[in-house]
């Protein structure tokens, strides 16, 4: 797991991407959930009884900041591998292996990453703010697990 993270975040581009995602997610969710106010003064506070919600927001900001750059990394690897393998007799074999090892459904991963974030951002008015945040975290954690697994088992072996 640590090796996979090192592999991705050894490149400065992914560190910057991760930082940007984390910052936007954190500030956005904290503003929506009224932990930060910009008017009349810039102020942040954690009201008593809302500490758990705050922790969930921090987790929810960290996970996409890790998962999304990892998936961009996967997309780049797939692109490179496609370029290298084009015309090769191993192309179809590698393609089928990629699908079997879940490097294929990158689109689904991206959708779930953004979808859960989008849903979470919109739930501040609903009754299920905390359960949906927990669900989104579970979904992102699962995405993280599958991403690490595929990078480790399939993509990592190839490179």
């Amino acid at each position, binding site marked *: 797991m640590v090796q996979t993270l090192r592999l991705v975040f050894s490149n400065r581009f992914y560190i910057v991407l991760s930082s940007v995602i984390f910052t936007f997610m954190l500030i956005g969710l904290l503003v929506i959930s*009224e932990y930060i*106010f910009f*008017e*009349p*003064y810039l*102020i942040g*506070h954690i*009201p*008593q*009884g*809302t500490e758990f919600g705050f922790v969930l927001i921090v987790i929810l900001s960290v996970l996409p900041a890790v998962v999304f750059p990892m998936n961009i990394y996967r997309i780049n690897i797939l692109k490179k591998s496609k370029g290298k393998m084009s015309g090769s007799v191993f192309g179809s074999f590698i393609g089928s292996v990629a699908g079997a090892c879940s490097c294929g459904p990158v689109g689904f991963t991206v959708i779930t990453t953004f979808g859960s974030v989008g849903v979470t951002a919109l739930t501040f*008015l609903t*009754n299920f703010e905390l359960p949906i945040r927990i669900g989104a975290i579970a979904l992102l954690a699962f995405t993280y697990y599958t991403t690490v697994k595929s990078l480790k088992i399939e993509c990592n072996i190839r490179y």
Partner: protein
Amino acid sequence: MSIAIISAIVAYSSSSIETEKSDVRTHGTVSTTMGSSIMGNPSASITIVEFGDYQCHQCYNWFHNTKSSVFQNYVDTGKANFVFMDLAFLGKDSPKAAQASYCAEDQGKYWEYHNQLYTAQESEIDNGWANPERLKVFAFSLGLDIELFESCLDSGKYTKRVQYNIAEAKKLGASGTPTFFIVGPDGQQQKIVGAQPYSVFKQILDSMI
């Protein structure tokens, strides 16, 4: 023809509101005539107007985390007074809860009932905690005349009053709860959106004193 009908409806609505509460009261640009009674010193130079919903969780947070400090330092000391207005829009039980508070007011227990609602609030909107039956239970627990309260609530006596408050909120651009308007002595007015901490209120109130 249609204009005449609309005029008649408007005239009827106005007259029925007036029969419920006749004194006209304004703080800055906020018409608080149909809001709560004034809490604190009526001649205080500053008025804090809160637009809230009894099912709003951020209003609950403000009530439990910030209100006591604001009251202790400004309302109880006579520097400011406080008026609550209804922006009851979050669920189907919200307008009924607001109406119930005015039925309690009929028996001189508006603020007790107001406090009771914000103490009993549950996190899920419209889960039944503020349905008419529970609203009557709250009234009973405060020792109100339950028959009077029931007839007031069931008749929809204060439906228009609550609707007026909601319209007033919209007119002032308050689209969420809680929204506060702090009106100073020279008519200066500051809007605070959300359950902001005490330090924000202190800074604004001190600048107006």
